[in-house]
């Protein structure tokens, strides 16, 4: 039962130990990367030095001195600085992304459901939609829609007018700007109160359902309260909001709010393009719920809306949401293509105009990239959180 123990061949060669190998390899890799970084940085500084290019972020405090066609925060072309330009760009990116995300979600949802429709035409048209717009580069679509939008709209003097307060022309879509007067605070208060009220109403409705099984139409009632309360207060408080109606003065409209055509075209193109991906995600999500689930719910006698809310959606959303959020991120990144049609978002304003006026390419491009990285980090954190929340147990 025993072999005499031989002296083990334990002269471990240093390089044959996998641990050592891993360490050596990693040190080499790290060294290579550090060297590369050093080499680039070194060249960069040498080049910058040799060519007398300024460095640092002091340019952010200089006055920019150019006009921007859409600014969400106060911006004065004679006195605002480049840091303000940066902020304007970021906000404009967020604005167009937000609008596009809103519409692409609705459109994608409709098309995705449409693809599963038992109406032959709806299903086929949805498919054609997806296969068409998904296979055309987004840049081409942006250029195309911009040209179409501009070509289709009339000049300011021939504006299409709605209710005498809303106007559509090739300078954009104009609408009245609300002007808050003294008592307008009450309206805001009413809105907030209504929201709080509806929140408690919803809790009460759930409790009542738990206690008695009676359903309460919380969506209709809640929606009505949130809508009606501010309106009511508006009249009670003596109509404290007036509006500044856009007016044709000279060759342009003055006053009011305006949505510029670049924003329209960009939001439109982004929505249409991204919706194809969202539609596919929605379809995959709904198809991922086995047919038996619906049958089982039916055989329990559940109503259609309860089936949708309690059985189908919770399972489908789990599959739908991650790809959809990734598409949101893609949409934000694609909004950078606005530079082709001159919508003033971060890339146009900062990597474009500012870069050219200031000439500090490295700082400016890094700052631009940092903005997008920040977006993507926030979105992936959100995604992880949602994934963790929606996980089905026991899989």
């Amino acid at each position: 039962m025993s072999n005499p123990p031989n002296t083990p061949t334990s002269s471990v060669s240093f390089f044959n130990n996998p641990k050592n190998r891993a360490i050596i390899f990693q040190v080499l890799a790290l060294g290579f990367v550090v060297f590369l970084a050093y080499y680039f940085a070194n060249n960069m500084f040498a080049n910058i030095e040799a060519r007398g290019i300024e460095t640092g972020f002091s340019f952010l405090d200089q006055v920019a001195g150019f006009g921007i066609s859409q600014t969400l925060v106060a911006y004065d072309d004679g006195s605002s600085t480049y840091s303000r330009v940066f902020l304007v760009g970021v906000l404009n990116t967020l604005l167009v992304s937000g609008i596009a995300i809103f519409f692409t979600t609705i459109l994608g949802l409709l098309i995705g459901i449409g693809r599963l429709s038992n109406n032959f035409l709806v299903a086929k048209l949805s498919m054609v939609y997806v296969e068409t717009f998904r296979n055309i580069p987004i840049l081409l679509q942006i250029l195309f829609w911009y040209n179409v939008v501009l070509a289709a709209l009339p000049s300011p003097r021939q504006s299409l007018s709605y209710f005498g307060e809303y106007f559509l022309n090739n300078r954009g879509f104009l609408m009245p700007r609300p002007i808050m007067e003294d008592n307008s605070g009450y309206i805001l208060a009413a809105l907030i109160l209504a929201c709080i009220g509806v929140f408690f109403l919803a809790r009460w409705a759930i409790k009542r359902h738990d206690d008695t099984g009676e359903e309460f139409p919380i969506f209709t009632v809640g929606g009505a309260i949130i809508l009606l309360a501010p309106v009511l207060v508006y009249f009670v408080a003596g109509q404290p909001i007036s509006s500044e109606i856009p007016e044709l003065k000279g060759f342009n409209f003055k006053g009011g709010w305006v949505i510029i055509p670049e924003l329209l075209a960009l939001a439109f193109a982004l929505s249409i393009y991204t919706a194809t991906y969202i539609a596919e995600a929605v379809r995959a999500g709904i198809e991922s719920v086995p047919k038996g689930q619906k049958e089982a719910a039916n055989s329990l006698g559940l109503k259609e809306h309860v089936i949708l809310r309690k059985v189908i959606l919770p399972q489908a959303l789990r599959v739908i949401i991650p790809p959809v959020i990734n598409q949101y991120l893609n949409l934000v990144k694609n909004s950078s293509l606005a530079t082709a049609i001159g919508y003033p978002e971060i890339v146009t304003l900062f990597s474009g105009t500012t870069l050219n006026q200031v000439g500090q390419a490295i700082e400016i491009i890094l700052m631009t990239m940092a903005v997008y990285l920040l977006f993507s980090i926030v979105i992936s954190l959100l995604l992880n959180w949602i994934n963790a929340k929606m996980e089905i147990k026991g899989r």
Partner: protein
Amino acid sequence: MIRMENVNKWYGDFHVLKDVNLNVKKGEKVVICGPSGSGKSTTIRCLNHLEKFQQGKIFIGETELIEDVKIVRHIRSKVGMVFQHFNLFPHLSVLENLVIAPTWVHKKPRKEAIETAMYYLDRVKISDQANKYPNQLSGGQQQRVAVARCLCFNPEIMLFDEPTSALDPEMVSEVLDVMVELADEGITMICVTHEMGFAKKVADRVIFMDGGQIIEENEPHTFFEQPESDRLKLFLDQILSH
């Protein structure tokens, strides 16, 4: 309790159910068997309107089954169905699976619904699993949950579509036990199954379907011992030699 009168159904041009006539009295237990594709599932799925049919009439109790949302829902609340793959809701705990129909369909208070649910879970002997999720249970346990889910709204009729065929052999007898127990309580029951032991033990009547029609029906003893039609003989040969 259940009356099917000359029910005909087509899938496109394919004639699946041919003049099916079936009468089941209150408390009766009927087993349906037959080769694969003979229309057994389709027949019982017609009974709670999971499938539409094109000709004929079906009555559940006094009510005729017509395409009307209210009536369909009313009938479904009287008819419980247990599927081959159980179709539990994987995102809900066992308890929630049981509570969902009573609270949303029968407007029961949640507390009451939970009590009932626990009662039935107890009856199928898995009340200790109430807070687990379906995927954490074995096949046999899942099947019991499915049975309990139906029982929760106290149906007058239970339909079973091959409730044991997806189970490991050990589980089969477990589930059959539950069904036998149910049968003893006098509930009306239609069961598609090939478990001959079960048929012999509890069925009042066994029905043999083939090619979309009822070929032969009889009480179990005669059915198995003295089959009349050739097709049934052939079929019994096959499953018994097995």
